[in-house]
């Protein structure tokens, strides 16, 4: 294993220490592992907290700032945060209007956020949560823990964040987050596995001529293995899966997301194929993101997330945002 780390046990704290130095707009509590926007708590504003395993950077700390999250609590690599961290973050951003937790549907995230929400409620902080479960690779939702939460997390955090910034009450912010999730779907493809620093070797083996279809964001195996193919075919597999689950039409918000180890040029190639697919179906990529937003350490591959827009969602997406990883209009 060759990685730019000092010691596997120190990856999260040292990354947070670096983040604090690099971004003066943030306040990073390295000991409690919480990343705050410097202004938090903002009086009268609904606070937004998200979190999950580390290793998905810029998710979640990279989305803390004006117009998006008030705090993020990163757990160990690929491990959800513990309740103490979430409680700390929640209390730290409570401006009196309640706090929204944006939670990805993984058992660990759900349990730890739920425990934290109960502890916060006991202390008089109003907490609501939006559960992100956009991954169409998980088909049999009746017999599983439900769909995984992946790329739509970024959309939900941005749009709910914009509404909270505008002063909307907690119930409305929750509703917007839920609407984004309901209108979003994702599918991921891995070209290589990733290496968790503490494990020291790749999570699974993939031959040079194989790809893994329908991966989540933890380097876990996907729903099927297939022969490697040109970008056009892989993009189509992903988009067909999305389109089959949620027929696409009209204006959509599209994210072609790199898993951490894929060059941007390849992601743009995928985006061109995605755009062509959308046009064939009569849909248009009205807004787009191409880059590394929800990564799996050093994994090569991509995921595509599509949200069917409404005028209101488009306006909220366009609202100013100022975070390390997303910045416009301000």
């Amino acid at each position: 294993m060759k990685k730019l780390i000092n010691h596997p046990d120190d990856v999260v704290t040292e990354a947070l220490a670096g983040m604090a130095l690099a971004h003066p707009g943030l306040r990073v509590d390295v000991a409690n592992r919480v990343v705050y926007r410097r202004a938090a708590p903002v009086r009268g504003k609904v606070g937004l907290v998200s979190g999950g395993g580390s290793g998905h950077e810029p998710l979640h700390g990279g989305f803390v700032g004006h117009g998006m999250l008030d705090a993020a609590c990163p757990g160990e690599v690929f491990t959800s945060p513990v309740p103490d961290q979430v409680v700390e973050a929640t209390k730290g951003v409570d401006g009196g209007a309640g706090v929204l937790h944006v939670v990805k549907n993984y058992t660990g995230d759900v349990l730890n956020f739920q425990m934290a929400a109960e502890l916060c409620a006991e202390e008089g902080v109003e907490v609501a949560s939006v559960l992100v479960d956009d991954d169409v690779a998980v088909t049999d939702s009746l017999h599983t823990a439900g769909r995984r939460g992946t790329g739509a997390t970024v959309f939900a955090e941005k749009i709910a964040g914009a509404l909270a910034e505008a002063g909307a009450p907690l119930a409305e912010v929750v509703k917007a987050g839920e609407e984004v999730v309901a209108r979003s779907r994702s599918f991921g493809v891995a070209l290589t596995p990733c290496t968790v620093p503490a494990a020291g070797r790749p999570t699974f083996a993939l031959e040079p001529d194989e790809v893994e279809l329908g991966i989540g964001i933890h380097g876990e195996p996907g729903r099927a293995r297939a022969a490697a193919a040109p970008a056009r075919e892989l993009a189509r597999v992903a988009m067909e899966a999305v389109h089959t689950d949620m027929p696409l039409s009209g204006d959509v918000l599209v994210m072609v997301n790199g898993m951490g180890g894929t060059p941007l040029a390849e992601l743009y190639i995928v985006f061109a194929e995605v755009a062509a697919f959308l046009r064939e179906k009569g849909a248009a990529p009205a807004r787009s993101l191409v880059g590394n937003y929800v990564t799996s350490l050093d994994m090569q591959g991509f995921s595509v997330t599509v949200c069917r827009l409404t005028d209101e969602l488009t306006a909220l997406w366009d609202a100013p945002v100022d975070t390390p990883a997303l910045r416009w209009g301000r």
Partner: protein
Amino acid sequence: MDTGFFVAWIEAAARAVAADRERLTELDAAIGDADHGINLDRGFTAAREALAADPPATPGRALTLTGTTLIRKVGGASGPLYGTVFRQMGTALGPAAAATPDALADAVAAAVAGVERLGGAREGDKTMVDALAPASRALSGAVRAGTAIEEALDAAVAAAEDGARAAIPLRARKGRASYLGDRGIGHEDPGAASSVLLLAALRQAARGGLRR
């Protein structure tokens, strides 16, 4: 079984988890995200330190402190789930200075019920419940039949091993492995495997007590 017995259990559990850290992590890599052994090792190391720093006065306190420490340190699904196991046991044992075999069996049953409630899992879902539930039944049955605690724990460990093995050909319905669908069939569930380890450590504590 006094407080020292339960502290010895946690120490044995910490040693077992550390020794099997790689195996548990590999089981997890096959179906999940390759961190089960790493996370449990971190949690039990912290639990051991917590027990040393704040020596508990009762078995109940030893287990509650262990559970709370696991929730605070482990994260993921294993933190809350194993935290619940120990907290439920601690609560069930209450303020007593020592636990009878009956009380231990009831505490394990309470732990299983707590895990089922929190994780929403039942036997056959291919989770830790597939090891814990049959172990709890075997323990209760043996204790009620008047079997000595050492032999009752032998029966519990055997039942846990059988349960974990029986889950291998199943399709997971809870936890991260459920996202794999049929592809997880044939893999051992890491949570069931670590549950077997913890029960074996409990037996070891009981056997160690005999030798003393």
